[in-house]
């Protein structure tokens, strides 16, 4: 089977509210132009298009069909969609290339979270019989996990504040970030609690945004990108939807995905941790030591476009391979409540 590489990436600025529609067209049109200009790929050459988005977030049925307008789908295209973060669309596209079905793919994710009540909408991804009728919102569920880890001694509120301070500081160098600045952990710990034990800054902001990734097989990758980010391995695992069945202070699914991959030589990781404690949890579950730099982009705490933020982790990690600043990088994406489902992707400068 052919090797697959990330050869292009573009993302919109993470902002609290865009003026556009919930079908993402206004955010996606410029991003498609950007990746076509960057790679030299022509629309007519794209073998497969795959997207991640949510009708519940958009508040309208088949919103991803309206988004296809941004592609210009005449003559008809080879297209698919996942109702989850577009990192899983990237997985589907990777499989399509590896099996030889296509040689290039464009993957995109978009979300206009500002249109609705994000934390309430996300309650609808819970078990519909025993959980969703109570409307446990995503922030409250994450807060249960944060305390479970504090009680278990897996992390402390001090460490959580340090994660936020580091994110805000790194985000100053990322012009597309939503939240950035210089804060000390002590300043952050002085803030009131929002969803005890979480403070507002422990939670990723509500963000509108989109991201686009271009994948290519070995035959095309070097034409499209000077230094392709070769996918050394990609694995995803899911856990039970019943929250009380899980040990929330760790991530069995992340550990299992990590065990599938060779992460040797990785010195940089982009982790899709929408809550501060989850960055610590993921670092522990994957087994990343202190030498590994996590979320140089600022990560989701600096901007968290739903259904695109996981894909962006792959894109941000790949960008560091493209520009030569890293030889090996790890990207992580999550879906579901309290890190229920986790995807890991190893990227390398060498095939």
């Amino acid at each position, binding site marked *: 089977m052919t090797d697959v590489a990330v050869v292009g990436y573009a993302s919109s600025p993470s902002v609290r509210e865009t003026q*556009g529609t919930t079908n993402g067209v206004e955010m996606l049109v410029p991003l498609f132009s950007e990746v076509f200009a960057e790679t030299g790929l022509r629309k007519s050459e794209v073998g497969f298009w795959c997207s991640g988005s949510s009708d519940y977030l958009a508040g309208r049925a088949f919103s991803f069909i309206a988004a296809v307008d941004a592609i210009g789908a005449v003559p008809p295209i080879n297209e698919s969609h996942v109702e989850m973060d577009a990192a899983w669309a990237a997985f589907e596209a990777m499989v399509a290339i590896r099996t030889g079905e296509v040689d290039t793919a464009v993957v995109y994710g978009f979300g206009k979270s500002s249109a609705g009540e994000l934390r309430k909408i996300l309650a609808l991804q819970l078990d519909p019989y025993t959980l969703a009728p109570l*409307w446990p919102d995503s922030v409250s569920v994450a807060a249960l996990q944060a305390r479970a880890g504090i009680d278990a001694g897996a992390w402390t509120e001090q460490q959580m504040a340090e994660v936020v301070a580091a994110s805000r500081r790194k985000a100053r160098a990322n012009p597309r970030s939503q939240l950035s600045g210089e804060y000390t952990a002590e300043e952050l710990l002085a803030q009131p609690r929002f969803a005890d034990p979480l403070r507002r800054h422990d939670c990723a902001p509500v963000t509108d945004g989109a991201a686009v990734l271009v994948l290519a097989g070995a035959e095309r990758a070097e034409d499209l990108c000077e230094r392709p980010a070769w996918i050394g391995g990609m694995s995803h695992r899911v856990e039970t939807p*019943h929250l*009380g069945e899980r040990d929330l202070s760790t991530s069995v699914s992340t550990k299992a995905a990590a065990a599938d991959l060779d992460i040797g030589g990785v010195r940089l990781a982009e982790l899709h941790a929408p809550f501060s404690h989850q960055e610590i949890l993921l670092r522990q579950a994957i087994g990343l030591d202190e030498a590994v730099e996590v979320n140089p982009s600022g990560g989701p705490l600096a901007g968290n476009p739903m259904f695109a933020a996981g894909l962006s982790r792959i894109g941000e990690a790949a960008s560091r391979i493209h520009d030569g600043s890293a030889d090996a990088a790890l990207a992580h994406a999550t879906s579901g409540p309290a890190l229920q489902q986790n995807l890991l992707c190893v990227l390398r400068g060498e095939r």
Partner: protein
Amino acid sequence: MLSAPLEPGFDYTRSYGPLLGRFAAGLRACRILGARGADGKVHVPAVEYDPETAAALSELVPVSPTGTVRTWSWQSAPLSGQPLEQPFAWALIQLDGADTAMLHAVEAPGPEAMRTGMRVHARWAAERRGAITDIACFVPGEGPDERGELPEVPDAVEEMLTSPIHLSYMHSASPQESTYLRELAEGRVVGMRCPVCRKVYVPPRGACPVDGVPTEEEVELGDNATITTFCVVNVPFPGQRIKPPYVCAYILLDGADIPFLHIVLGCAASEVRMGMRVRAAWKPREEWTTNLANIDHFTPNGEPDAPFESYAHHL
């Protein structure tokens, strides 16, 4: 850009199935049941399949309505639909006799009254319907004892759960749609031309579906149009404006490349045909808003039928 509140709602109905149906029937009778796995582990709330082995589970056993808080968080501003209207705690509660924890609300005066390891017990809703919400919430302290005071486990199965889902959005129109809607409020239909393929879209689009670029050049369209295709509506449905039979047609305005759906009145349904020429019948000016319903319907304009070739590629 135009925007407006959008509040979609739907009552989802879900069948419980045999195992969850008995769990729900227990709740209606103020009893909490767990599913016992082959390893003896008791799962509460009951699960249909063992999360470890995926084995189908069928044995249900009653557990205590009293248990221990394993983790909790504080909901300082409850959202609509949540168990309590005043601030409360969410908790994962391991009931006595259960090996797993269930999520529910705990009524407490403030976060300082909560701690991991505290004992809580279920408070039942006055009106129960066979659902997880039959537990109104949990409250601190020991509940009734397992021996004697608890109601009998019923020999019953709930069939169906009805879950009303109501969400609130602020729906935004695209820049092109906003222009179109504002012009409609002035009694004009405005389309937009794609800069690449030159096609005129009405309503205009955020991106031409052929070329993937925004439509830009505004084109004012008149009231005259051709019916490209149509159907006769004979079936009554809730919210119907007109008594059937009536005609729903694809209307291609002169100068436009995309037809839209509208209603044809002013002649018998049996007289409507492909290629028929029609014109817009606008409502009285004082009723105009940012809505295509400003055009009440289309009606025959008396011109000879358009030749098939003139609209064949718009079908």
